[in-house]
């Protein structure tokens, strides 16, 4: 019954800070049309749709119904998934489950956001406990800042190490016409940008973005007929923890560690640093680029700054991270995790154009959100056993 699942087409908008020229359904449609064109399929070929965005971001909470003009969901099964920042990655995992179950052959997965239409901080605040955390809250960035403080205190890392990650991702974005922010910055510029929440500077964090992404998944029965070299989804993992902000281990992302262990053990990856060719990480701020590759098992605790300063995660390095420019360059939140998945798929399929990493056998994409949650997908060129 269980089917192997492949990604056979992807599509994205050209992401911008605001898109006054289109409404929500229309921005969704742009991504859907591009994904259908990429897979050379028509909307009638699609058996079911999974769609999601952040709750409260547009103030439209029955998006699965409201968006059918844009998604192509008229008289089709449509399911909405929304899990905060992880939404896009949860959508990919949900689509994978639907096709993998054998119940649907071709599933269209859509993540989108018109972040410009709402008060982002106000909407994010609704994700936190109203009685305990919301009364003494200092904004979403402060939670990330507390993680960075915890890591720096434990391993002696500095804000220069964080800034180096921002310099990398912003440089990579120059190769990606879909990225919102395409401007190189220097280390000094990052460190001189306004301090938002110590130790996070303005240029360490992601922007607010309008954008959409669509991915088409197909079962092994038809995948190679649609796309001769599809991106096979080898394994997915999700770990959601946290009820209150005080529950987390500040300086370590335990959910990332658990996801990576599950996937790498089941697939038999012993040296992820050598065996994985590219990572598209949902990294909403620069310091996560240090902390989370350690939790993923790429390098040991405290080793990320040295690994990154040596250029290993730059384009042309041992293990390029975020060839797309990542989340720091572009963050339409409900689409962001799915963009990571689409970018990883494009790397495996050899369709990543100016940001292509040569000879990708395995790619990893992740989602982050809620609070300290991780979703992870392992993508591969070969059909899984």
């Amino acid at each position, binding site marked *: 019954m269980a089917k192997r699942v492949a990604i056979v087409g992807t599509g994205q908008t050209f992401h911008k800070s605001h898109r006054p020229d289109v409404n929500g359904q229309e921005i969704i449609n742009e991504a859907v049309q591009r994904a259908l064109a990429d897979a050379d399929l028509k909307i009638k070929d699609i058996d079911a749709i999974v769609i999601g965005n952040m709750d409260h971001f547009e103030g439209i909470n029955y998006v699965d119904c409201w968006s059918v003009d844009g998604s192509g969901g008229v008289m089709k099964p449509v399911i909405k998934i929304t899990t905060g920042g992880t939404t896009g990655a949860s959508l990919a995992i949900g689509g994978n489950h639907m096709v993998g179950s054998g119940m649907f052959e071709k599933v269209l997965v859509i993540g989108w956001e018109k972040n410009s239409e709402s008060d982002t901080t*106000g909407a994010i605040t609704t994700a936190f406990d109203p*009685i305990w955390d919301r009364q003494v809250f200092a904004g979403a*960035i402060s939670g990330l800042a507390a993680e960075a*403080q915890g890591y720096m205190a434990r391993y002696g890392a500095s804000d220069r190490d964080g800034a180096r990650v921002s310099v990398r991702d912003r440089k990579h974005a120059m190769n990606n016409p879909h990225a919102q922010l395409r401007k190189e910055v220097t280390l000094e510029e990052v460190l001189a940008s306004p301090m938002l929440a110590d130790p996070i500077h303005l240029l360490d964090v992601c922007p607010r973005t309008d954008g959409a992404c669509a991915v088409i998944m197909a079962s092994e029965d038809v995948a190679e007929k649609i796309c001769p070299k599809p991106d096979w989804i080898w394994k997915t993992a999700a770990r959601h923890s946290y009820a209150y902000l*005080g*529950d987390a281990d*500040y300086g370590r992302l335990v959910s990332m560690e658990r996801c990576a262990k599950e996937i790498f053990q089941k697939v038999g990856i012993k040296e992820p640093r050598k065996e994985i060719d590219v990572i598209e990480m949902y990294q909403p701020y620069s310091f996560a680029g240090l902390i989370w590759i350690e939790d993923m098992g790429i390098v040991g605790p405290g080793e990320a700054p040295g690994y990154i300063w040596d250029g290993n995660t730059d384009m042309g390095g041992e293990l390029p991270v975020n060839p797309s420019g990542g989340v720091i360059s572009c963050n339409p939140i409900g689409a962001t995790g799915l963009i990571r998945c689409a970018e990883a798929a494009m790397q495996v399929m050899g369709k990543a154009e100016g940001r292509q990493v040569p000879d990708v056998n395995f790619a990893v994409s992740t989602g982050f959100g809620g609070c300290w949650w991780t979703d992870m997908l392992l993508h591969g060129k070969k059909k899984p056993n």
Partner: protein
Amino acid sequence: MSDIFKGIEPLIYESKINVPYSWWAGDTASKFFINLRDEKKIIAPRCGSCGKVFLPPRKVCPACFTENTEWVSVSDEGTLVSYSVARRKLASIPADKKLPVVWGLVKLDGADTAILHFLDDVDPGDVKIGMRVKAVFAEQRTGGIRDISHFKPVR
């Protein structure tokens, strides 16, 4: 980048949705808040299986998945687990707090989980992970987490 907006007169519909809520704290949290309000005492439930003491209080231990029935006293002093300094005024920061706002996770002596709160009576530059802090109770207490006004360094 702005080419796609050429010739477009973007019409915007401004709206504000009024969505009032009343959140019930529940028996477990209420017990904590009533002690805080009336006695300036900090109490927390303890798991009968693993012994973990939860602050904020939890009715069920998430690890053992059994109901916590025993309550213990927790100190009003503890250790700073992590922190940040918010330097921008956001709507989510209470109106009475002045920038910069120091925001910390405090593990009180006797508790196994940290509680989120404000740090005050301290220069932001002097805040360090691991520093000892003490609760300052609010003069007027109404039965909420801000019945603790803030935490200050133990000198």
